[in-house]
């Protein structure tokens, strides 16, 4: 196969490319330039798409004896990932930009270009597995190493996208093994620190970064019964489940800490309350996609058992889900959570699993609690 290896400059994508070469594929390495200002240098484990990353990717390709190119997707990245991130926050939602990048850049813009240029697949260093069912259709599964598993951030991939994915790290028992393999192959990135945080916010200060881009106006902080507790300097600076930095002055009646329960960008209010009210028991998701051929219940609308995960490294919880169809409108994916789930914010992605298999995903539009009705706040 002709394989395009997306090379971030990190150890995972370098080893993934090496394995693709070893498997006999015709591999070309490509580093994506996602920033219009590539002049920055890396500090610690933060930042991405720096000169050093591009150079590390080039050195890895040189070592593997494969061609290397830098492709510019900075305009697409700004539009589809960065601007989207800002507008989601401005609307009071909590997006996952890595998923958006997988959805729109790596496995869309890049894949599109790769296919047109004669490649068959895009190879990345993600820890996830693509296997084929009896009819040859692709299914997305968790990686062998659950601690490193990245199937969550790939949950947004569609059938067509999965047809052209290659994840050579799928069966690797641990990250340590990948590093050892890189070392043995003479790849200089063997001991390079893992990337953390959001690549386009190099100092990791998401709140500060957002504050420069979204108008912050002071507004009310209310408790879960609608009582005014104080003032905030801008609703976008808060996130559901947040405890620190509320600066309320006086303690709650029960003396227990208060948490952000809800952000209302429309009337610029932040609702806080006791920890137990963070628990929700129903998630409603929109913008649904299926990772491969949808299971039968999707067609019939019947309820099915599954697990729901709402964060890249969050624990999955049991759910009963079904598709709620309203003629002429996009469907809603409803997941009832008998054991509940804490701290869910609209905008987060719910990825649904059966066993190790990713069925699909939806963007959380609302999360409901049977113990607390937000309407009570008014």
């Amino acid at each position, binding site marked *: 196969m002709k394989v395009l290896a997306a090379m971030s400059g990190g150890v995972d994508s370098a080893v993934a490319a090496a394995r693709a070469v070893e498997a006999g594929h015709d591999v*070309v390495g490509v580093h994506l*330039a996602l920033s219009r200002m*590539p002049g920055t240098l890396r500090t610690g484990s933060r930042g991405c798409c720096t000169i050093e990353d*591009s150079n590390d990717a080039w050195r890895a390709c040189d070592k593997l004896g494969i*061609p290397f*190119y*830098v*492709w*510019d*997707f*900075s*305009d*697409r990245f700004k539009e589809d990932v960065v601007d989207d991130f800002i507008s989601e926050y401005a609307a009071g939602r909590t997006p996952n930009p890595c998923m958006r990048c997988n*959805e*729109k850049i790596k*496995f*869309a*813009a890049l*894949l*599109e*270009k790769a296919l*047109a*240029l*004669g490649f068959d697949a895009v190879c990345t260093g993600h820890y996830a597995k693509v296997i084929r069912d009896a009819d040859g259709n692709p299914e997305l599964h968790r990686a062998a190493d659950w601690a490193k598993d990245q199937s969550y951030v790939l949950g*947004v991939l*569609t*059938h*067509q*996208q999965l047809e052209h994915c290659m994840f050579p790290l799928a069966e690797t028992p641990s990250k340590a093994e990948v590093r050892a393999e890189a070392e043995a192959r003479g790849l200089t990135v063997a001991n390079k620190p893992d990337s953390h945080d959001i690549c386009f916010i190099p100092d990791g200060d998401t709140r500060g970064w957002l504050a420069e881009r979204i108008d912050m106006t002071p507004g009310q902080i209310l408790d879960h019964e609608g009582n005014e507790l104080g003032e905030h300097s801008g609703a976008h600076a808060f996130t559901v489940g947040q405890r620190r930095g509320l600066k309320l002055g006086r303690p709650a009646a029960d003396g227990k800490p208060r948490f952000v329960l809800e952000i209302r960008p429309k009337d610029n209010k932040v609702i806080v309350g006791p920890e137990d009210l963070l628990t929700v028991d129903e998630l409603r998701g929109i*913008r*649904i*996609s*299926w990772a491969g051929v*949808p299971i039968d219940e*999707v*067609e019939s609308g019947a309820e099915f058992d599954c697990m729901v995960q709402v964060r890249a490294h969050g624990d999955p919880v049991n759910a009963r889900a079904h*598709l709620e*169809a309203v003629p002429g409108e*996009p*469907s809603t994916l409803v997941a009832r959570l008998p054991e509940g789930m804490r701290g869910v914010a609209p905008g987060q992605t719910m990825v649904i699993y059966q066993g190790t298999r990713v069925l699909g*995903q939806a963007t959380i539009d609302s999360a409901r609690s049977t113990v607390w009705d937000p309407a009570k706040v008014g």
Partner: protein
Amino acid sequence: MNNSAVYLDHAATTTLNPVAQAAMLEEYAHTGNPSSLHGAGRRAHRVVDEARTTIAQTLSAHPSEVIFTSGGTESDNLALKGLYWSRRDADPSRRKILISGIEHHAILDTAEWLESHEGAELVWMPVEREGRLDVSAAAQLLEQHADELALATLMWANNEVGTIQPVAEFAALAAAHGVPVHTDAVQAYGAIPVDFAASGAATLAVSAHKIGGPVGIGALLVRRDVTLTPIQHGGGHERKMRSGTMNAVAAAGFAAAAHDAWQGLEEYSRTLVTLRDMAVERITEQIPEATLNGPADTGGCAQRLPGNLHFSFPGCEGDSLLFVLDMLGIASSTGSACTAGVPQPSHVLLAMGRDARQARSVQRFTLGHSTSAADIEALVKALPEAYQRAKKAGMAADQSSIHTAGTGFNR
């Protein structure tokens, strides 16, 4: 050459001329700082001096006008900063720089740095559709800003589209207002005759590795009546304009390559013109949508560099085409090597009135000593399919046809 069977990127760098290699190997065997006063020093000094004389000869300049530098970029920096500081210090009202929009980054970025850090003001001269200076507009600007101009800068020939500029005509206009002109002749040198004395320029930049010499040495010609404020201070070498131990080895290689290029220039440019014209004819025959940027100058090299081919390939992105050709063993370029890596729309094409999309759909093929008719044939053979494939890859800004969660089946 290198990993590419067909190397068509000689404007980026070209093969080291064996005579330059031999001259350097010879010189490597000797010790001596050209500034030292003993026998070994005098010997090294002689090598540099002879190199200076040879290089001056190839440019119709006086040996004392040759200032050795590390290459084209340093020469351009020294000329612009040196002229600006020297002229501004003599008269603080002279803060403007007259500049064309098609200059190399070594000029553009230096001028922009002077603007942001040293109080310079840039006055942009327009170019015509084929990339040639609009002389009447330039004359008007000279007239308008004369007393406030620190300097003017106009390249001898453009590195992307190969258009040769009316440097002597422009320098004469500037001279009437007492404005010194710098010219970047990096691409012209070794390809067409470059006569410093006749040009009327105050300073002129050249580089060794573009003409078969080593990377890491170049020269700035500085007319004897011109003073530059140095950027680099130290031992006062090179008329106190460029301190630093003189590199006798590189100077010897530079001079050997320069002499060889100068002697064979007429025949060489004639050969390249034949190959270039053949390529233009065959490419436009194979791909009717492809258009040559810059003047065609068929049969000649008074308007266009003999070894330059620069085409627009509508609907495809330059880096995709480069990729497909590279996979087929053909080395080309989307513009200058400096913008390679992260492709940006060419500022030269933008200055020539093309839009951002058109400025990204271009490919440059540059010929050199090793280029044969077979290389051109290989390019002509590969291009149609490469173009189709690159066109299919589309412009990166276009929407994807891949089914995603956003566009996919929202049941």
